[in-house]
């Protein structure tokens, strides 16, 4: 039955997250970007919202809610409405937790899921993206070579969030024998894992991301996610596409609402600039693109939750959201005129953050 109504739980969750985004994240977002530094207290508060413990099974001490991509998309949008860097930081434990939850062996789950029930954010991350201009998630350059009960990892990863402070990371690599992409649960103490210096990006400047080198980094074969069965890699790629699309919608909405309110207040030629069709139409088109991108994201998420093949929907939603967020955040800067270019105002930050989405892969997960 067609419906666009959130469940009561989803309604309550989005309201909580919106309050956090507005009251806790917004006030610190500007300085966090300028200082390239995550405000730990706010990240901690984000962790305490309990998004991840909610989906850890009860027998392991969690709340046992089903992992829902729709709920995840709703949450991601609200968090990104606050700030993209902080949203990515708060959601980063999911990059490790959700694949583990979905595909981990009983032993892997029992050993590692308790990490997500601690009082501080789990020190984990995931490494998918690789440097260079031609990234293809299905043709990873990082390789995994099985030798007996050991696996050697070789290659370079990029855009790995919070890598320097992570004790565990999920590393995606292509089997040098079969060409199949697998994921490996790797501890930071493993020899041959070299976290390089922090990356310098156009946006998401508050979020520390790193390049990582793997030089014959050797782990037990038992570290392969899901053991012999492995994982459903296409489904995981779709889960991250949906997450990124939802985050893009959140960034776009932040920019749009600010521009809308500004245009109603800013007076030129004796009236608010919003009373000119040139401005009003720009805002109207932004509003339409935001809603369209959100609906596409929801549809892809809904398919994922039904366990259906959702590649087409997830790819199109991500592609659409990539374009929408750029269109909307650019309109946001344009609406503010010269002030749009001044860093005291948030519009240019949203444009810098929004521009990143086509490049992002593996940075978030629902």
């Amino acid at each position, binding site marked *: 039955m067609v419906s*666009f109504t959130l469940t009561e739980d989803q309604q309550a969750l989005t309201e909580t997250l919106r309050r956090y985004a507005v009251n806790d994240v917004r006030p610190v977002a500007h300085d966090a970007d300028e200082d390239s530094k995550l405000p730990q207290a706010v990240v901690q508060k984000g962790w305490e919202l309990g998004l991840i413990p909610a989906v850890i099974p009860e027998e392991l001490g969690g709340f046992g809610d089903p992992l829902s991509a729709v709920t995840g998309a709703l949450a991601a949008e609200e968090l990104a409405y606050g700030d993209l860097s902080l949203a990515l930081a708060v959601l980063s434990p999911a990059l490790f937790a959700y694949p583990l939850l979905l595909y981990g062996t009983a032993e892997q789950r029992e050993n590692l899921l308790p990490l997500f029930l601690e009082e501080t954010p789990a020190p984990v991350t995931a490494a998918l993206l690789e440097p260079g201009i031609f990234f293809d998630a299905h043709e990873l350059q990082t390789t995994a070579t099985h030798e007996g009960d050991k696996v050697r990892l070789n290659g370079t990863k990029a855009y790995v969030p919070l890598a320097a402070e992570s004790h565990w990371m999920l590393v995606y690599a292509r089997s040098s024998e079969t060409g199949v992409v697998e994921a490996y649960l790797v501890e930071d103490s493993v020899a041959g894992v070299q976290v390089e210096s922090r990356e310098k990006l156009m946006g998401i400047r508050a979020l520390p991301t790193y390049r990582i080198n793997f030089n014959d980094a050797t782990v037990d074969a038992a570290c392969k996610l899901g053991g012999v069965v492995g994982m459903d890699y296409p489904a995981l790629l779709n889960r991250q596409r949906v997450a990124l699309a939802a985050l893009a919608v959140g960034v776009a909405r932040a920019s749009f609402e600010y521009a809308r309110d500004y245009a109603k207040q800013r007076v030129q030629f004796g009236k608010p600039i*919003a009373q000119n069709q040139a401005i009003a*139409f720009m805002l109207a088109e932004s509003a*339409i693109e935001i809603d369209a991108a959100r609906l596409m994201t929801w549809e892809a998420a809904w398919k994922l939750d039904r366990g259906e093949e959702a590649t*087409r929907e997830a790819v*199109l939603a991500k*592609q659409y959201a990539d374009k929408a967020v750029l269109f909307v955040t650019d309109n946001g800067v344009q609406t503010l005129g010269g002030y749009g270019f001044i860093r005291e105002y948030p519009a240019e930050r949203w444009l810098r953050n929004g521009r990143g989405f086509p490049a992002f892969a593996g940075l978030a997960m629902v």
Partner: protein
Amino acid sequence: MTIDFEIPEFIQQQQAMVEYIAQATMRPYSRELDENEHARPTAFIDQIWPILKEQQKATLRKLTETPDPNKPKRPSTTYLRLMLLVEMLSWGDAGIYLCLPSAALGGSAIEAVGTPEQKIRFLTRFAEGDKPVWGAMAMTEPGAGSDTSAIQTSARYDEATDEWVLNGEKIFCTSGGLALEESDGLVIVWATVDRSAGRGGMKPFVVEAGTPGVKVVKAEIKHGIRASDTVAISFQDARIPADNILGSSEVQTGAGNKGFKGAMATFDASRPLVAAGALGVGRAALEFLKEKLTESGIEIPYGTPYHKLTAIQRDVMEMEADLKAAYLLTLRAIAMLDEKLNNSLEASMAKVKAGKVVTRVTQKAVELLGPMGYSREWLAEKWMRDGKINSLYEGTDQINTLVVARRILEYSRNELS
């Protein structure tokens, strides 16, 4: 409730039947009717009339009977069904679809504001008989397009005979000829009872076929949807019974202005349905394009990174994404209608998006199909001409963008015009 995109089983079954009708009675005649403008799609009309007649009968029964309070209330799917019906029929042929023998927009107005007596008097004809009957809506005039408040057609009450006397000219009336000259149909005519009152004086009147002084004066020749009957109608001292007015005859202004508000409220239902029509044409073009590309060995590999896609693959994916965006915006506006929520904003969003998307998708299909896209041998060029109407009627893209802008900015028409 929860977020859900599932189309109920019984509607999916309806879709299969409608697709069959489209394949059998629309597609084979698409080209012929496009080349012979003003010819009638008789195969389609004959096939669909008995079905519509039964549906109209059921609708009429619901409209006139008192609802049983003990009957469990199921969520309505009336508009969802209608949306997908319109989408599929437009996929078949947008021009032929518009010749659907039904009360159409005229019916919506009567259903919305008519008295029980009026509903029976005016709508029964659409629910019985061997011959198809059409309804139509006449709003636009040469000097009143988007600005409906500029309507000049007048209605004067004649106390001596207890009649309304209509004078003026209406244009761009869809199925007006079918309603007035080729069936025992009717047209809802918007006229002013007091020109000085602006919107407050605007009232809808029911004009039945055979009314003296009412004449179809021109059948337009058009860019696309050529199978659709688009006419100009003149009214010269056309006399209709006093109780053929829909709603009150009082001149109303401000919040009490139900006449104009009534007209605007019908847009909340009609705009998403126009959007649905746009989606059908867009899907027809995209499906055909993909079919031809497949024949040439070109598939669309979702999930392949951008740098590995060809320009054609990128174009097709963008067309698909745009069409999906328009579909979902339409689905939302429709779901809100079924839930009886105010959807003016969402209806205009869907309409403007779908209009733009069908325009772009069909133009792109013509381009990508090369010399064959431009050829009248295939239907691609026709779909491009047909698709364009969706950016124009039921409010141009610009008017609908203006509606969206006013809503999001919380501006009145005086603050943003």
